[in-house]
């Protein structure tokens, strides 16, 4: 493959692609290496932000150097990923809490109010909860 780029664009695109490759590999390796589910939630955020972000910045510089125009598709993709990845992480953590943990296996919150995901009655609770709600009056803290 032969590309006609100026030298600065060649070096910049290569550097961003190598940084992105390193962080993408770190994110996927951490998904294998880390010991438990909540720590595993941490690893792929590196692949989302730095990995895909580095590839997108490299692509922007490449399009700017070869075709001489500013490309905004990459900004759209990275904006969408930055908006959606916290929502995805929240949903996955909530699935883990409701399917594999109970209130007595979780650490105690500092102000003693209980975990909000468990104390909410009705819509926030899952169908497969391990400890069902008592049938009495609603929670004292509310």
């Amino acid at each position, binding site marked *: *493959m*032969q*590309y006609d*780029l100026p030298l600065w664009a*060649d*070096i910049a*695109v*290569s*550097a961003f*692609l*190598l940084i*992105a*490759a*390193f962080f*993408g*590999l770190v*994110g*996927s*390796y951490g*998904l*294998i290496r880390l010991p438990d*589910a909540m720590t*595993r*939630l941490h690893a*792929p955020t590196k*692949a*989302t932000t730095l*990995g*895909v972000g580095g*590839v*997108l910045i*490299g*692509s922007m510089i*490449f*399009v700017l150097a*070869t075709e001489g125009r500013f*490309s905004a*598709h*990459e900004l*759209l*993709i990275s904006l*969408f*990923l930055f908006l*959606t990845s916290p*929502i*995805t992480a929240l*949903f*996955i*953590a*909530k*699935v*883990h809490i*409701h*399917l*594999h943990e109970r209130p007595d296996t979780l650490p105690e919150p500092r102000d003693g109010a209980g975990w909000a995901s468990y104390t909410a009655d009705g819509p926030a609770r*899952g*169908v*497969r909860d391990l400890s069902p709600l008592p049938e009495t009056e609603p929670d004292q803290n509310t």
Partner: protein
Amino acid sequence: MIGYALTIAIGAFSLGLLLNLWRVATGPNISDRILALDTMVINAIALLILLGIALGSSIFFEVSMLFALVGFISTVSYCRFLLRGDIIE
């Protein structure tokens, strides 16, 4: 030089895709499997953009945008199905 960088980056993200596939196959919990599938979508987006650089085509930006949309909606609907037993009520 950019050819070597592209080869290394495509190799790294492909290896990451294989590691995610290992986590999907052997994940102990269902949340690990959902997380690994979400990371597979992220790696596939990066591979598509790298392929767009390598081929000099700009159609891959639209493809990767569609991948991001479908990946987000599928992850959220899978989690919601596990949490509520239903997706649209």
